[in-house]
């Protein structure tokens, strides 16, 4: 609803928010270092695999795990690195299929967040592929940070074609 009073404008929105938990790229013990987290919306798994494999070789990345995050064909990818924020931005922006809204928000916020609790009426997360690497993990799986947030995003609406 928009109400205009001369030069003033009053906007009111009503939306149903859901509480979710997310894992963040920023590390708890070493906040200057980040883990690589990717978010893909409605991209085929083969396209994601090809892009990530090239990035893995180019940037000497350790193993990458691709997880199906919802039934609509959305995927998340995890790579347990300890890289600077600048380097993480460089790698993520080098991924053509990445969800651009996720990248933009993460860059402004200073860390990237992936949802780890399933949405209502959606199945749980499932590992669909692992891209093995000769390089060892740079960080521990529990070294990341976690937060809770409220959102009205039902997923998949960030897709732009």
């Amino acid at each position, binding site marked *: 609803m928009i109400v205009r009073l001369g030069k003033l404008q009053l906007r009111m929105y009503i939306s149903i928010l859901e509480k979710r*938990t997310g894992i963040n790229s920023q590390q708890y013990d070493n906040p200057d270092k980040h883990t690589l987290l990717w978010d893909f919306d409605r991209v085929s798994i083969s396209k994601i*695999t*090809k892009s990530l494999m*090239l990035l893995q070789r180019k940037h000497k990345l350790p193993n990458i795990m691709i997880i199906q995050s919802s039934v609509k064909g959305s995927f998340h990818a995890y790579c347990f690195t300890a890289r600077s924020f600048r380097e993480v931005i460089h790698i993520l922006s080098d991924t053509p299929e990445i969800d651009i809204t996720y990248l933009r928000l993460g860059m402004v916020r200073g860390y990237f967040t992936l949802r780890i609790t399933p949405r209502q009426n959606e199945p749980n997360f499932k590992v669909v592929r692992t891209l*093995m690497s000769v390089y060892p993990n740079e960080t*521990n799986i*529990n070294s990341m940070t976690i937060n809770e947030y409220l959102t009205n995003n039902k997923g998949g609406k960030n897709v732009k074609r």
Partner: protein
Amino acid sequence: MSKGRDRDYEREVIEAAKRMKKYPEHLRSARDSDVWKDFLINIGVKEDIVDSSSGSDFWESVREKVDSKHIQRLSIYQQARSVGMPAKIARRIRDWSKERAIEAIERWQMAY
């Protein structure tokens, strides 16, 4: 303690304080989070590995969980095609040494 060591210690404290200042307050460590642990267990990581959280154990566990057919490596031909190299050239570089072929793919990626 010598003066040099004192200075090193002081610098370490200052750097740690800077890091703490930079750290956003609303973020918690994943180490103590049950949600993160549940997530890892749900995707197939064994409970004792989640607690011990050793990197190599973690990957062994994930490897056990996913079917071996899903663990893939791209061939030189597939890598060449994925950067837009024509099939004719991609087939030709297949016979080259791996290093030379990868160099050619990278050059192609930069040039086109």
